[in-house]
């Protein structure tokens, strides 16, 4: 059965400006909070003087590293966070002093009056410098500055390369990308002796945030409550954030609610961008173009503290091994502390980065063999039923059909006749629908389904809608199980004090994990309600979508709901169900089946490169996806087009320019993101088959959307220019330099 159009119920409010984000909310008596940050990438703090700041009229709290708790905490197993810096600052933007005041003016004055003196130290600015003998140790628990080292080999890679007919290799680098959320990061924190700590904060993994913030203050988790207002864009930026913790610390000191709202400058200065990776890669094939082996060495820059960079490195080292049949694979991954702003996850999560390298090398092998790059891909991809070399069980996989369809849609055969400066490039990709390694304790989801007195059905989930359309998808699933219209479903989430536990929205997990929980809960609601109506109205009573039929007699669902409530002491009919996926925790070598299902896609990009300026214009784009059955078509299509647009920005224009640890382009004018004229018409097609593990056969789409984009566009540029760029972004200056380095004919 094909899906119906599902409209998000929050659309009218968003489109009419009625949706209220964190900075639109106010608490009585709230204070403005702000932070004094380090101007140095690495320095010893020699003096902090807050006396003058404390004298400013309207200042209610000034805190430093000396008067906040010092528990070891952090959002992952690496507990390297503090609340404020004590002896040293580790990056430009590191937090030293925080102030709460009753007006913006008072806050600004007080921030200016804080005196911090530093003794600058030699900063570590890249992973290789971090590993130099004698390099400063940034965190005592990690004496070699390398918190994560990945090493595995499956098969015999050296033997495979010795037997190869062709080997192509290169060093590819991916850059720091700003998430570009239009809503700057903001938080309101309120401390109350009785209720504990309450935060209003955009976090799409609020239960991990709760756990982390409780640890920061040595509080039991039940003393921390996180409300999540609608999130104005994240793409990985709004997970667990120090600025939330600092607002909480200020509120504790001031005894009043504290709001910290970053402006764009501060948001960009302190942003935790995409983890920059340096990838040395080689791929071997026989003379017929069958892959024999893949060998990668990856260096990642974690910055000064650990956010989600370990998982990003792990994805980079492993995911592509379950896209192609490489037969022999080896990876060495090194994640290093540096004195850059901590880096973290962004849509694509290491996989898009590695696919940029893989897809370019594959095109080079095709050139070397005189083969069509599409054909080379077709004869090496994974298929349904495979258990991949990385341990993924592919219960569904339409990758081959995706490639064949994108060949047709894009007019792939045209590329033979293109003139110089005009290119057509292909790339493919895979992803997960949730990832077991995110939280070894649990990777499922829980949902509550409740029949309200009005006859509407309320779904509670711990997962978070951040505009991707999750609520609409859950409404669709619930409506389909219950046989009622989606407009009768309300999806509630975003309050750790009210709604069931959820891992949150990351690893493209909300459709499959949360969706399965919603489906199970609604099935149980339907089945138990069907039994109850027989007890209550008589054995001939039958539950239908609209209510109950007893012979000729009709009872509307609202009436049934009220009858149930009357019989149960005022309690509405409510059930809670937990979906626990049959996934495997990846082992020490990252082998295992970490997700219930794997989406796939094949993309083709068409570019024109200006021969004078080397500006790349993407003039056509085709994306064919295997996302299983599509449950929310407008949202799924929107995810793909949006992901492609972000990829266009990444490859052709976006770059955080960092010098001595300091972001140089801290405005949306200097850090250009795609505008409407930068995005060509994007043709999106879904090849729908049912995945056995998804709700109504669905798989994920959110991150899959961007994974192939860097590969597709860079391959198109290489096709247009006849030379290949290895370092993102392939902005005009870089392409011009590459062309200058070419031997002149």
């Amino acid at each position, binding site marked *: 059965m094909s899906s119906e159009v599902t409209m998000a119920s929050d659309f009218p409010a968003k489109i009419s400006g009625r949706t209220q984000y964190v900075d639109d909310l106010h608490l009585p008596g709230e204070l403005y909070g702000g932070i004094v940050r380090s101007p140095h990438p690495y320095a010893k703090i020699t003096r902090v003087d807050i006396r003058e700041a404390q004298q400013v009229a309207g200042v209610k709290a000034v805190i430093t590293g000396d008067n906040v708790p010092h528990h070891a905490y952090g959002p992952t197993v690496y507990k390297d966070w503090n609340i404020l810096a004590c002896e040293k600052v580790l990056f430009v933007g590191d937090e030293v002093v925080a102030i709460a005041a009753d007006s913006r003016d008072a806050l600004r004055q007080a921030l200016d009056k804080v005196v911090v003196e530093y003794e600058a130290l030699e900063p570590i600015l890249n992973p290789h410098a971090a590993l130099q003998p004698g390099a400063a140790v940034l965190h005592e628990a990690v004496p070699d500055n390398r918190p994560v080292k990945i090493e595995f080999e499956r098969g015999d890679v050296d033997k495979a390369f010795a037997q190869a007919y062709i080997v192509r290799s290169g060093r590819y680098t991916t850059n720091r990308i700003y998430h*570009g959320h*239009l809503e*700057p990061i903001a938080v309101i924190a309120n401390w109350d002796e009785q209720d504990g700590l309450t935060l209003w904060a955009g976090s799409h993994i609020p239960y991990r945030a709760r756990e982390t913030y409780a640890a920061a203050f040595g509080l039991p988790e039940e003393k921390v409550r996180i409300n999540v207002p609608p999130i104005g864009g994240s793409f990985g930026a709004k997970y667990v954030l120090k600025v939330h913790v600092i607002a909480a610390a200020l509120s504790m000191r001031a005894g009043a609610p504290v709001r910290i709202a970053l402006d764009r400058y501060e948001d960009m200065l302190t942003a935790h961008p995409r983890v920059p990776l340096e990838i040395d890669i080689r791929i071997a094939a026989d003379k017929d173009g069958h892959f024999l082996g893949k060998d990668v060495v990856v260096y990642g820059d974690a910055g000064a503290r650990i956010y989600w960079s370990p998982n990003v490195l792990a994805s980079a080292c492993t995911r592509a091994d379950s896209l192609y049949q490489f037969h022999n694979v080896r990876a060495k991954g090194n994640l290093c502390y540096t004195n850059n702003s901590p880096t973290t996850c962004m849509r694509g999560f290491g996989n898009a980065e590695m696919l940029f390298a893989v897809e370019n090398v594959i095109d080079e092998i095709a050139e070397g063999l005189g083969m069509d790059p599409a054909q080379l891909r077709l004869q090496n991809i994974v298929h349904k039923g495979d258990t991949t070399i990385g341990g993924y069980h592919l219960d569904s996989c339409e990758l081959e059909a995706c490639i064949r369809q994108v060949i047709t849609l894009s007019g792939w055969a045209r590329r033979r006749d293109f003139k110089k400066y005009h290119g057509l490039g292909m790339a493919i990709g895979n992803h997960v629908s949730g990832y077991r390694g995110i939280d070894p304790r649990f990777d499922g989801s829980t949902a509550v389904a409740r029949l309200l007195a009005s006859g509407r059905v309320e779904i509670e989930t711990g997962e978070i809608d951040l505009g991707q359309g999750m609520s609409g998808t859950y409404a669709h699933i619930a409506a389909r199980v219950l046989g009622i219209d989606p407009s009768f479903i309300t999806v509630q989430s975003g309050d750790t004090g009210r709604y069931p536990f959820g891992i949150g929205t990351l690893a493209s997990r909300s459709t499959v994990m949360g969706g399965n929980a919603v489906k199970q809960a609604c099935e149980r609601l339907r089945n138990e309600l069907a039994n109850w109506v027989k007890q209550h109205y008589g054995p001939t009573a039958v539950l239908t979508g609209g209510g109950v039929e007893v012979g000729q007699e009709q009872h509307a669902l609202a009436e049934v709901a009220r009858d149930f409530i009357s019989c149960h002491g005022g309690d509405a009919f409510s059930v809670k169900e937990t979906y626990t996926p049959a996934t495997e925790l990846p082992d020490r070598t990252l082998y295992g089946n970490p997700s219930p299902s794997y989406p796939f896609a094949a993309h083709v990009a068409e570019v024109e490169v200006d021969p004078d300026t080397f500006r790349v214009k993407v003039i056509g784009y085709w994306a064919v996806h295997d996302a299983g059955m599509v449950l929310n078509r407008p949202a799924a299509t*929107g995810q793909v087009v949006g992901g492609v647009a972000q990829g266009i920005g990444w490859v052709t224009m976006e770059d955080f320019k960092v010098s001595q640890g300091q972001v140089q382009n801290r405005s949306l004018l200097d850090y250009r993101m*795609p505008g409407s004229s930068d995005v060509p018409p994007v043709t999106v097609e879904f090849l729908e088959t049912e995945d056995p593990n998804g709700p109504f056969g669905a798989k994920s789409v959110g991150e899959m959307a961007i994974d192939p984009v860097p590969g597709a566009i860079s391959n198109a540029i290489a096709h247009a220019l006849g030379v290949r760029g290895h370092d993102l972004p392939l902005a005009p200056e870089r392409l011009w330099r590459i062309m200058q380095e070419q031997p002149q004919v």
Partner: protein
Amino acid sequence: MQEQHIILNLNGEEKMWVGDPTTPLADVIREHFQLTGTKVGCRTGECGACTIILDGAPMNSCILPVAMAENSVIQTIEGLADDRRFQWLVTAMAEEGGAQCGFCTPGIMMTLWASSQASHGGQHPDYHAILKNNLCRCTGYQSILAAAKRVLGREVNAIEQ
């Protein structure tokens, strides 16, 4: 700071505001008049989330000193809520999936509304030019352009059908 009394024509009503005349209009709208449909994304006039309509033209309210708006007609998205023709645009955006996170959306709606009030001489206007001052990070613009085409190009659409 010298306080000034400023009379604003806001959504068809005369309003008095007292304060620093250089205060950004966006802050006055959002904080004093509590019209939070106008969003602030950058404070430097680069993203367009704060777009309001000033004398019929879309304008970044985050870099407009409130004193500059005196003697002008200011429309915010709240002022259009009851306009039947505005609902036409709301419906088009909703049906085309023109919003995801929704933060840039009110600004885009104001830009499109201002443009829909102008005559395009029976031609499709240059939709990219209309949207050049609005950034959206979620949608890739395709759905927004589709909604714009439905509403702004309605005369041409009718002929083309």
